């Protein structure tokens, strides 16, 4: 899962080297905290959060096979 989120986020930004994904496992779900360069924030959020929402939808769909609830949070 981290693979997929990392691949997508790094492909969206101008500074892939500054992308950091932290996996935070909880009892019921796993949260993936996404950090990017300040100038790249807009590229992973998008107008009205469209890109961020698409990232969440895709990650959730891909996580179905692991039978695991996941959240994707973009940390500013």
């Amino acid at each position, binding site marked *: 899962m981290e693979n*997929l989120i990392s691949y997508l986020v790094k*492909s969206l930004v101008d500074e892939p080297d500054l992308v950091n994904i932290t996996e935070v496992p909880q009892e019921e779900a796993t949260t993936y905290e996404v950090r990017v360069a300040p100038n790249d924030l807009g590229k992973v959020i998008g107008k009205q959060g469209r890109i961020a929402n*698409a990232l969440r*939808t895709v990650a959730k769909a*891909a996580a*179905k096979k692991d039978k695991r609830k996941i959240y994707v949070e973009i940390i500013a």
Partner: protein
Amino acid sequence: MSETETDVMPITATDTAGEGTDPANMKPEVQEALTLMTEVCEAIGGGIYPEITSLKGDYLTVDLAGGDTAETWGKAGRSLDALQFLCNLLLARRIQSHLRLSLDADNYRERRTEALTEKAREIAQLVKDGDEEAVMEALPAHERRIVHAALMGDEEIETYSEGEEPNRRIVIAPKRNR
């Protein structure tokens, strides 16, 4: 070991897919799109892989195959649409041409086109019966195109879209004589 893993080539393009999709003679932008989809599928994991099904104008249709694609991507259109939206963003960053990806899984697009067409005709009938316009649920651009096309030949009604993405909706209205 399932037989699909042994008898299917991971990357295929049949000669019916259209000009420029033959692996030996692929246009650079189509090659780039296929590379992108191969990377995306590898990142998703679970043995899924891309297959080019057609190239019509600027639209390259890629089918997601293998693994649990039918279950995961072929049922909920929202997931497939979100993946398609992201893949087109990534593709636009890599190529200069207007090539667009249309993703499919387990024939979802065909089923969805049939369902949307049927629904559009049902609503059109209600609009005619009640002589009052109706607003459909918000749809992505490629699905609105299906609805417009489905009702294009109907002389008694007209269709147009209103609102901003991603909440743009189709209005089906009785055609007034002007």
